[in-house]
């Protein structure tokens, strides 16, 4: 039984279809990269996995259970922008992952100290220890996204959704973020869905690369049909399938 099971999902806004007949089975711990043209519904798909929006038709099951109708702690998200709380210090952004689960959102006494200590450790690990007391606005884009990922992870989600998380970063920072993400994933074994416009990034990080595209196209009315998953690449082993049984020595591996 697969962990995330999407079957026959349609999504339309008003009369306009965005996604049609999307079906997908994902095992626990898989890293799924989502690519596709702008506006083809990748973010919409993530929002449905997040349960911020519901499919017009079809079902999404996680661990065999239907979603509850609103975002919850079992799925974390990192957006391209607005992912951290601008009014909280870097440390409080991490502490929030614990504090927000209380009745009024504030920790007191020993709980507070414990959460702050844990946050300090997390920040030290992701290299943000020295800016713990600053506000996110004073951080660089890469630091903000690192904070956003750490914040999402602090709530211990089983699924992490990333919507173009590194889209605004320079190539060097991007590589550092890839390493950070791979490390986190090796540690937690969580399931990841990542939307990206960078194919290389998609293949490098993903176990599978899903391509969203419109299977039917009406030149008179480009909006008449929605997109669906048209390719499902096996991206393990540098994107060369069936090679893992062979002897490793003769296999050409890009990067």
């Amino acid at each position, binding site marked *: 039984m697969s962990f995330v099971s999407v079957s026959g999902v349609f999504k339309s806004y008003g009369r306009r279809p965005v996604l049609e007949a999307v079906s997908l089975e994902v095992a626990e711990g898989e890293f799924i990269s989502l690519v596709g043209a702008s506006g083809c519904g990748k973010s919409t798909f993530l929002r449905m996995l*997040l349960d*911020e929006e519901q499919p017009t038709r079809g079902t999404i099951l996680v661990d065999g259970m239907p979603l509850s109708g*609103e*975002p*919850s*702690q079992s*799925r*974390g*998200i990192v*957006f391209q*922008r*607005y*992912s*951290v*709380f*601008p*009014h909280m210090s870097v440390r409080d952004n991490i502490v*929030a*992952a614990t*504090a*927000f*689960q*209380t*009745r*009024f*959102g*504030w920790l007191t006494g020993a709980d507070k100290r414990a959460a702050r200590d844990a946050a300090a450790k997390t920040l030290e690990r992701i290299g943000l220890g020295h800016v713990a007391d600053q*506000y*996110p*606005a004073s951080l660089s884009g890469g630091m903000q996204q690192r904070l956003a990922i750490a*914040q*999402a992870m*602090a*709530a211990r*989600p089983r699924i992490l959704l990333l919507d173009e998380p590194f889209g605004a970063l320079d190539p060097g920072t991007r590589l550092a973020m890839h390493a950070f993400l791979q490390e986190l994933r090796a540690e937690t074994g969580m399931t990841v869905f990542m939307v990206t416009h960078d194919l290389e990034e998609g293949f490098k990080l993903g176990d599978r690369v899903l391509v969203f595209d419109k299977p039917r196209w009406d030149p008179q009315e480009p909006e008449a049909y929605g997109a669906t998953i048209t390719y499902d690449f096996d991206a393990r082993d540098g994107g060369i399938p069936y090679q893992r049984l062979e002897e490793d020595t003769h296999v050409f591996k890009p990067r």
Partner: protein
Amino acid sequence: MRWINRTPGRAAALCLMLLPFAALFIAYALGSEARLAVNPQDKLLPAPSKIAETAGRLITTADRRSGEILFWNDTFASLQRLGLGVAIAAVTGLVTGLAIGLFPYVRAAASGFVSVLSMVPPLAVLPILFIVFGLGEVSKVALVVIGITPFLIRDLSQRVLDIPSELFVKAQTLGASSTVIALRVALPLVMPRLIQSVRLSLGPAWLFLIASEAIAADGGLGYRIFLVRRYLAMDVILTYVIWITLLAFLFDFALRRLSQRLYPWAGEDSL
């Protein structure tokens, strides 16, 4: 170089800032002199020295009958009404604005009502307030509250709606309940805006205060101005007007500083 790219230096900026004040003063002084030259008894434009003299007398000399300095009594009475009215309006505006902005059910029920309510001209309901609450303090405070609350509610609810939905989604994925989202996300994010809206509504608040004091009161800055109008005491009126302006300016300045101090993350746009 284009004029849009030229900026004055520090000293020049200061001079430019003082220029209109100086111009106004000189224009007044000239006008006053010209009129007094024709008729030394003229009361319309008293000489600046006369105003200064009157101001000095007003803020130091006690009233013969009550033995109190009316100027400070008036100031205290007015500030109490204004402060109370603005505080009540700010709290009401904040709570209602948050509720409308956050909860679709409240929004469905209240936002149409508030838009209609905000169209009621507050001064038109002043007689009703006098009838209902009498001529005492309550009706004056109530006019200030009624005058600025609808604006605050609309402004703050809009501000809550303007918060990027990503932040609310994020809070939910961290396990936050509606209460926690209201208290830890929406409330702090709109606080700088509340201060800014209060700053904007201080002008109308003074207007409503002075209007209600002018009509029925036994003390207060607005009351005094309208009282001495009967004697054409321009020197007193101008002293009070300058004092009110100064107070309003100081409040505005203090609120701006408060916002910068309390919400350093809010940046320039909330100044």
